[in-house]
Structures are given as structure tokens and as C-alpha cells.
């Protein structure tokens, strides 16, 4: 029941996401967004500690 959180995204981004999601075969833009985020998070998830997470975030370009 309480397992979702709402996030606000700019309309222009969502419009692009809708188009790409349809082309790729997702059932909804939400599914595309979730999958894209899952793939990024998978690159961080088995890091052993915060230092390693930071290194990976830097490697992925999320931190400088």
C-alpha cells in the first residue's frame, strides 16, 4: 500500500520518455524510467562500502 514515492519530472523530459518507451516496447513511460534507473543502480549496488560507492559514482560521472 505505501510502497511507492512520487517524483516530479519536467514535462519536456516526460514527453521524450513517452516516445522512447513506446518505440522500445515498454508498457508505460513509468516502466521505461524504472528500468533505466534499475540498470544504473545495479552498477552501484554490490559496492562494499561508502568509499567504493563514491568511486563508482565518480566513474559513472555522477560525482567529480
Amino acid at each position: 500500500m505505501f510502497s511507492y514515492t512520487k517524483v516530479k519530472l519536467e514535462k519536456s523530459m516526460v514527453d521524450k520518455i513517452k516516445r522512447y518507451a513506446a518505440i522500445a516496447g515498454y508498457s508505460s513511460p513509468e516502466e521505461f524510467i524504472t528500468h533505466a534507473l534499475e540498470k544504473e543502480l545495479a552498477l552501484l549496488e554490490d559496492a562494499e562500502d561508502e568509499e567504493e560507492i563514491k568511486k563508482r559514482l565518480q566513474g559513472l560521472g555522477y560525482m567529480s
Partner: protein
Amino acid sequence: MHPGLLLAVLAGVVLGAPSIADAYIGPGAGFAVLGSFAVLFVTMLIAGVSILAWPFRMLWRVIRRRTKSKPLIKRLIVVGFDGQEPRITERMMAEGKLPNLSKLAKTGCYSKLRSTFPSITPVAWSSFTTGANPGKHNIFDFLDRDPRTYLPRLSSTEIGSVDRVLKLGKLRIPLAKPSIRLLRKSKPFWTILGEHNIWSTVIRVPITFPPDKFYGAQLGAMCIPDLLGTQGTFLLFTTRSSEERFQEGGLRFELSPNGSKDSFEGTIKGPENTFYEGNPPMEVPFTLDLDRAAKQATMAINGDTIALRRGELSPWVKLSFKAIAGMKVTGICRLMITEMEENVSLYVSPINIEPEKPVMPISHPGYYCSYLEKKLGPYATLGLAEDTWALNEKVTDDHTFMTQTRDIENERERMLFTALDRLRKGMLVTVFDATDRVNHMFWRYTDDDHPAARDIDDPEYANAIEDQYRRNDEVVGKVMERLGPNDVLWVLSDHGCTSFRRGVNLNAWLLENGYLALKEGSDGREEWLQSVDWSRTRAYAVGLVGMFLNIEGREAHGIVKPGEEAAALKVELKEKLDGLQDAVEREVAINEAFDTDALYRGPYKGNAPDLLIGYNHGYRISWDCASGVVAGPVFEDNIKAWSGDHIVDPRLVPGIFLANHPIHREDPAIIDLAPTALSLFGIPPAAHMEGKTLVDTAHFDGREESAQP
């Protein structure tokens, strides 16, 4: 479907490598916070709030409804018989043995129904659910492999662990609930129906754990675990001494003398208690007192006394495991004394999650399972409920297995008619699993010279499969009596069945042909590919349906470069596997190996095995291969009770489809049913669905006015 193989894999991991098991079995953590009292309280609270909020939710739904649909029908009733095989069905219809199906075929339609690639339950029902191929719903097998460890894991459910705990001495109080995620993607057609204000009741459709949330009610099915967090582990308490482990599931425990030759005691170990450091199992002790002359026994457990008769399954028995003060975890199981002569043995069925107070989410709304329990009594909640393992291991016998299967089937039938009698308009789908189980376990009695039945003369259940198909026909007849003029009935199966006489160990074949290497000094007998030297292995088989390449950058120790090298290796393997001969039997074992890159479309196709193996009639992945043992012959006889199967070339094992209306396609597929369901309710099929509607809506035009709400 393959509960046995799945259980083999999961049970083996639990038993063979505890650290590995912890990594992915997981639900032990889930019980920590979802303790019995807390669940009951929260469930009651949610139910109360839901009842109070119902008028407001209905109003909100009317206000929010963006598109109006014009249903062509009043109700769509879908009855699924998992595994019903068309060759048997057609023969029995021709012989007049299935009068209701014959009537339906004559007045409406009958056709074979194309299954999915692969033709197994989780994949086929997911395509039924979404109207999409596996590349879009992400279910390719019962099992996936973790590319970091090469170990198998459930493909359909992910249960997270609880990281934040409050330590109080030896106690660890979890501060968050573990996440439980359904990994089936895309969108169920019943969710789309709900967006158009059309109610759906979905009972035991596979790959619904945790359940979907939509306008309707759902009782989850595969892969709901048992209380131990596995897909069905039976327990055997026995005075027989044995060092042997059950191969495909089941745990053996000692039944100890308790003061006299007729008194014994034992301890049932339940789920891990994650409130304590080290996660010790929760335990329930019991005593067993025998009356050998009367072939009866009395079991004392949890303060209750249970009467048992030798060779008879007890009714459902509740087991309460204490977690911490004031918090219990409950489950239900069935018990049977299997012997009480020189040795004494007590069979305990897999401990199902109790539907009255479930410790995991098994229905939507959360209280729907409790509602069913209050109405119908306790029932099996385990995803793979029929204990094929105990029969395979010869702990139980054909009669016990059939009793259990019939009882579960009766529970399902009551659920179907309870829901059907309450459905004024909307969609109802109920899946029965008995056919599939009976096909699997009794094919040996229909197949001349099956290795598993060679020594058996005139077995009691020689006609078990035909009897099952007759029972299915009776259920269809009862549903037909309840149909109104604006109701549509579908009867379908997700795949068929064929003989499983010879097992194929793909990893042994890969070893023999130089694609897989063993670690120095290893004999290849370890399970779960623990014998494999990944630095010299180019391909491996995990799961039940296919083969993976060991790709650099994808697998943890991949050596095959992606791109051209991987593509060339795939072609090379396919050329050798297409038409692979079993030299001993002089038969083709593998019709074709399918390149999944060409087979699937969609964002998740990269999660599929690289090659899907299409076995010929009589062949399937071997038991050893399923548990990751590399050593041994490539081909061997299957001598287990599990003697029929369908993880074969999907073109060999279509399902069936019948309806009380004509269809305008000659070659329907299970992937077509979701868009067809939508069109019957006046909703255009969703853009991502690849299936095509099977009906000409003009056929239903006359019903339109009377079907309007």
C-alpha cells in the same frame, strides 16, 4: 512446468551452500517485521480503512476515468488447466469422454494454442497476462542466473534483505521492511481493464508473487514460497539412519525415542529467526505416541493433539513458531505416518504460508486471502503446492500424491465458484494446476517401456491422466451451467506435455566438446557449477531451458568477447546442437537450438539465455544438469516418477483453446488472449502488445446493449 527442477535447484543451494542460500533465498528476513500479530493488526486496519474509503474511491474512479469503454459482453470467464495436452484432449473428445468440452468445441471453437518459447508455465502465463513476448515481460525461465556468481536465482521474485537493525544484546530489531518485488514486467491486461473501470478477479495465475495492484482481487500463485523460504521443502522425520541427502528437495531429521518403544520426539525447524544474531531457525518440538495395533498415532504439538492414521494425510495442521515474545509466525502443513513397523517415519508436507494471517503479501487486496480462508477453510498457498518431490524421492506414494493433488484441486474449484457466483460483471480467471502435475508424474504409465515404469504391472493410477481430463471436463460443465447470454467462456492450457525418458546434461556435453573446463583436480561432481574453471569456460547451462555464453563484461569471469566473437560462438554451438543425436537410443535428442537474440524483441531480451534448447519428444534437461553437476554422461535414462515434461521444442507441445464463440484465426497463440480480452470489453489492445485479437467484434454486436452497465 517444473516445480521439481526448481525445487532441486533451490533446495540444493539451501542445503549445499548456506552462505549462497542466504544471498538469494531471503524470505527469512521478510518474516522479521511481518510478524503474525503485526500483520493481523495492519490487515484489519487496512480492511477497515478500505471499507470506509470505498464510496470515496468509487467516486474518485468515476471522476478520474479518462476513457469510456463500451463492453461487448458482461463477463469473461477464463478457466486455465495448466498443461492440458491437445493430443489427449482430442482423442478423448473423439471417444465421447469429454462431453462438455465437445459441446463447447461444437457451439464455439476448439483449437490448439501456440505456447511461448520456451513452453513452460512462468513464461507462457506471463505472455497470457501481458500479451507480449518474453523480451517485454522479462520472464524466460523459472530461474535466472546471477552473472556475478553464476548461481541460479528465482527469475520472477526478488526479496531484499533488511540492512537497518537496532541491536539490543542478542536481539536485532529490524527498522525497515524488506522489499519484495515482482520481476515480471510490462502490464497485465487486468490492470488495463481496471483503468477502464472493469473489475477482474485473478485466482492463481502463475507469476503473481507479490500480487499485482489493480481494480480487482487476486490470489497469488507461483512463486509464493513456503515458510522456509523455498519453493516447497518437505520434511521427513524417521528412525531410519541414513547419510543420504534427498536429491531434489526434502530434509531428513531424526525421530528420537522418547522413553518407550512407542514414543518418539522431534523438532520441526521453521524459518530463520532474524531477530537473533546468526538467524537461528525457529523451532517447534513435538512428541509422537504410537498405537501400532490400531495403526494410529497421536502427535502433541503447539499444545494441540493431532490424531494420525498410518498412510493417511492429516487435514491442514497449523504450526506456530515463536519469533520473540508476543510475536509468532504461523504456517500450515499436512502430516502422514508413512511407516510404523520396524521403523517409524513421519512425513511433513511443505509448510505453507497460512492464508488467514499471511507473513508475506500473497493476495490483493491484502485481506483477500484471509477472506477466502474464512469462507472456505485453510488452503494451499505455496506457489508449487503439490508435493511432487516427496513422490519423486519415494517418501510418499502415488495415492498420497493424488490425494494431495485432488484436495488442492477441490480448494481451487471452491474458489472459482465463490468468485463466479459473486461476479456480476467483469473478468474472472482461475488456473488449475492438477493437470500439469498429473501429466508430469503419471506419464510413465501411458508410455510403453518408459524407464520409470518398466517394473510396474497394472498400477493403481494407470488412468490418472485420463481421469484428470474427465474431472476438468466436469468443472467446465459446472461453469457452463452458470453462464448468462452475455458471458464469454474460455478454456485454455499454457502448453501440453510429452514423454521425458532421457535426460540431457548440457554441461557434460559442453565439457566433452571443449567449451567448458573443470578446476584442476575437480571430478565435476559438485553442484551449482562449483567445479567449473570460468577462466577457461566459454559456455554454460543454468536453469532449465537454455545455455549462456561466458561473456566478458557481462559475466563476472567472462572470456568471450561480446560482438563478433560471441556471435560466432553462438553459431558454432547452434550448428552442433541442431539435430544432436543420442547415440545409444539412435534418436534425435535436440531438434533445434534457438538464438534468443533473433527470437525475442523488447527491452529485457538481454536477460534471456543466449541459446534456447528445443528438445525432441522424450528428451529434456537432466536432473544432474539442473543442479549444476557437470560430471556424468551426456544422456541417461530418466527413472523418476516425474516422467512427462514440456521443456522441449515448443512446437511439439502447444496447449488448447476452447471458447463459446468462434474465432477468426486458425493458429491462435497464448499471446493473443490479452488483446482479445481487452477487445471484448471495448478497449483497443495496448500498443506494446504483440498478440492480435482473435475475435470479430461484430459477432458480439447484438449483445452490446444488454451488456451496458
